[in-house]
């Protein structure tokens, strides 16, 4: 219980470090870095405490869902209230965010301070504000608060991408990231308003006092409306004239707009590769491990709402599967190390969406966890390489760094094996589970859902090969062979503050998959799928009954009974599991071997020309930027100009016309005010005579 009392401090500590860095960073050693490290370290410790409490190690209470602060009180309407929802999902995410943020702060000492960058207080203030906003988003117990912090992390992303604002690229990339994600957030905002108008609440989980529900949550209300037809109190449905499920699908898809923007899913993924203009620790923290995860986390957070709509699930799965493959193909031809990682990030978030869409809630959370670790590791490793290479990111100028920077090499290799999905590194277990869930639900679900899942699964499976290939193309080009430039022959030495975080994450990337070794658990019958148990909760009572965010409810009640997602095992349960695992492993290994044969030599050469026209297509990222720019300049701009013409011509024209008629009229009429008294007297007399005549005629005097 006590841990929950201090839980707001998890969010507030980085916020304090933001204030300290902003206002006192100039006068502090290391430009405010130490405050950030202390704050995120404190948040990490508190998060561990909260996690232990949620797990039940420190007492009986295992969840928390309360409002702590009313920001804007509404009269007979919705209030903007900040509240904390602490359940296994948010506790896990708290751990991930605070851990990565802590390590990135330490790494920044090496990447920013030791490189003699200026503007460090601004940098650490940005990191602090970002961490605070992200943690606020994670613990948010209602949609309005989540939206607020969702926007705040977007702002921090903008500020940090544009950190080197005196160069040409970063400000432009920052604006692009801001605008593209804002485009998605626009739909999210409509969705939030729609959900609040429909249900009158944005709560993710019901608030209880002494066992009674005092404030119901919107996923629960939606479930009642769909399952029992209990639509009283949802007046919106009559206004809209749609069925409950159809309307909830519309709302879910609107919210999904924000998710697609923030998690860089097709077609709003174009900002993420450009965001690599920011400092590399920022890329690791924001554009790989945490902020990009916010979209996926949001879907997981309100999974009860999506799980009642098969259409929304199919859309999520297809978008995810397509993005996974689409981004992976672009990663194959990139020359900058960070670009490869950026496309790989997009691709991996595609896997998480695929898992969420195809009913693999645990798989998605698992992949989110492992990906946060190994992708942060890869980005920090790339950062280390970039320090060594004097900020040259082109992989064709590297080579042979293996002997010269062994710590970076071995940790990077650990992350790469995890990314490629090679057993027993983290990515294997999670990616395998994602694909397995998509496969069995694709085989078992009836109607259009099954084929949709199978298509998404096929794309995800193909992307496994690509992932293995581009990952090890990157490793071979960067670390193996002979050095291809003078800098690569004599790289700069990196310090402890770079090697330390790399080592921690390197060990984690190799081991974090052990928290949910589903194939081993199924084979041996041992209960070692800890993450599954963690998200499943106790069978009776406890937080799943309290909050309704447990796995039993999601999987058995909603997905199976309402959405019609069911599993099919053509080879038996264990057989299908092993076949799926072996298939994805074989593809990943094949990808690695192809990369080795093409780029593993001492003097690798470019093979991209063999792709022919496809190379041009891939190098231009499928012309995604071009068509989006065309949408803006070729379509939106003329439409806006036409609207402007209408506004200036017709709307303003009427107003201006009225006033010019009045001006003209009065300029003529004022002439009778001549200033000559006799004229006035004449007018008076004429008026009197006229009146008399009128009275005379109407009175019948004549």
């Amino acid at each position, binding site marked *: 219980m006590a841990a929950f009392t201090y839980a707001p401090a998890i969010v507030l500590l980085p916020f304090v470090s933001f204030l300290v860095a902003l206002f006192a960073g100039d006068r502090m050693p290391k430009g405010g870095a130490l405050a950030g490290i202390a704050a995120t370290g404190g948040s990490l410790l508190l998060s561990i405490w909260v996690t232990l409490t949620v797990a039940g190690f420190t007492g009986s209470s295992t969840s928390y869902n309360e409002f702590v602060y009313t920001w804007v009180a509404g009269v007979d309407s919705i209030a903007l209230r900040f509240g904390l929802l602490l359940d296994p999902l948010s506790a896990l995410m708290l751990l991930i965010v605070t851990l990565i943020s802590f390590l990135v702060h330490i790494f920044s000492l090496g990447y920013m301070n030791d490189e003699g960058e200026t503007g460090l207080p601004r940098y650490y203030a940005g990191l602090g504000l970002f961490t605070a906003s992200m943690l606020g988003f994670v613990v948010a117990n209602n949609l309005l608060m989540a939206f607020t912090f969702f926007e705040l992390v977007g702002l921090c992303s903008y500020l940090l991408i544009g950190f080197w604002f005196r160069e040409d690229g970063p400000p432009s990339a920052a604006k692009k990231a801001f605008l593209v994600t804002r485009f998605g957030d626009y739909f999210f905002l409509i969705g939030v308003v729609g959900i609040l108008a429909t249900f009158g609440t944005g709560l993710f989980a019901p608030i209880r006092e002494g066992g009674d529900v005092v404030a119901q949550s919107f996923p629960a209300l939606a479930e009642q409306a769909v399952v029992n037809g209990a639509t009283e109190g949802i007046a919106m449905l009559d206004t809209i004239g749609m069925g409950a499920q159809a309307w909830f699908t519309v709302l879910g898809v609107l919210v999904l707009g924000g998710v697609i923007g923030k998690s860089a899913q097709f077609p709003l993924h174009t900002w993420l590769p450009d965001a690599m203009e920011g400092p590399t620790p920022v890329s690791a923290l924001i554009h790989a491990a945490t902020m990009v995860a916010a979209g996926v986390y949001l879907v997981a957070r309100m999974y009860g709402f999506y799980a009642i709509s098969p259409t929304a699930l199919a859309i999520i799965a297809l978008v995810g599967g397509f993005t996974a493959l689409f981004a992976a193909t672009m990663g194959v031809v990139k020359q900058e190390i960070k670009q490869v990682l950026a496309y790989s990030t997009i691709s991996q978030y595609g896997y998480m969406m695929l898992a969420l869409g195809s009913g693999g809630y645990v798989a998605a959370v698992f992949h989110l966890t492992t990906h946060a670790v190994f992708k942060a590791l890869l980005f920090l490793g790339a950062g280390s390489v970039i320090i060594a290479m004097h900020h040259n990111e082109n992989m064709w100028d590297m080579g042979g760094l293996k002997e010269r920077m062994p710590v970076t090499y071995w940790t990077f290799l650990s992350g790469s094996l995890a990314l490629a999905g090679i057993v027993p590194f983290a990515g294997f277990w999670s990616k395998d589970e994602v694909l397995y869930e998509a496969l069995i639900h694709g085989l078992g679900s009836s109607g259009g859902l099954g084929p949709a899942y199978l298509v998404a699964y096929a794309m995800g499976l193909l992307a496994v090969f690509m992932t293995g290939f581009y990952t090890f193309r990157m490793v071979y080009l960067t670390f193996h062979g002979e050095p291809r430039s003078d800098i690569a022959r004599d790289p700069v030495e990196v310090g402890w503050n770079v090697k330390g975080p790399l080592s921690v994450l390197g060990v984690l990337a190799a081991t974090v998959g052990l928290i949910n070794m589903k194939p081993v658990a199924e084979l041996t019958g041992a209960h070692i799928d800890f993450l599954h148990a963690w998200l499943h909760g106790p069978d009776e009572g406890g937080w799943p009954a309290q909050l309704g965010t447990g796995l039993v409810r999601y999987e058995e009640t909603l997905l199976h009974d309402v959405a019609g997602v069911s599993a099919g095992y053509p080879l038996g349960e264990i057989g299908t599991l092993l076949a799926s695992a072996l298939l994805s492993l074989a593809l990943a290994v094949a990808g690695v071997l192809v990369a080795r044969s093409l780029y593993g030599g001492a003097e690798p050469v470019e093979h991209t020309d063999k792709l022919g026209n496809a190379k041009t297509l891939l190098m231009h990222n499928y012309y995604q930027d071009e068509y989006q720019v065309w949408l803006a300049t070729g379509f939106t701009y003329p439409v806006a100009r036409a609207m402007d013409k209408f506004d200036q011509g017709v709307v303003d024209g009427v107003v201006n016309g009225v006033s010019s008629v009045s001006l003209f009229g009065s300029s003529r009429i004022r002439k009778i005010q*001549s*200033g*000559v*008294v*006799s004229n006035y*007297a*004449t007018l008076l*007399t004429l008026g009197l005579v006229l009146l008399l005549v009128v009275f005379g005629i109407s009175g019948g005097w004549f």
Partner: protein
Amino acid sequence: MAIPAEYYLLLSAAVFCIGLFGVLTRRNALIFLMSVELMLNAANINFVAFSLQHGNLTGQVFALFGMAIAAAEVAVGIGIILVLYRNFTDVDVTKATTMRW
């Protein structure tokens, strides 16, 4: 043998019209003022005539008030004409047109 009221009214209308004619045609401010006096006194004649007709003294009292007001008006009017003369070195009412738009 009382004179019928119609004759008084005709007299008053004639005096009023003379005054009105003066106001409309003359340009000298003093003549202007005199014409206004004529119109006022035309009204006074009406008051007195109707008072006699109805045997009611109220009209005669009002005629006294009218004369008092006419005296006051002349005082103010002469003052205005003096200022007019100082500013425009003339008492022509059509010259003083600086207050228009």
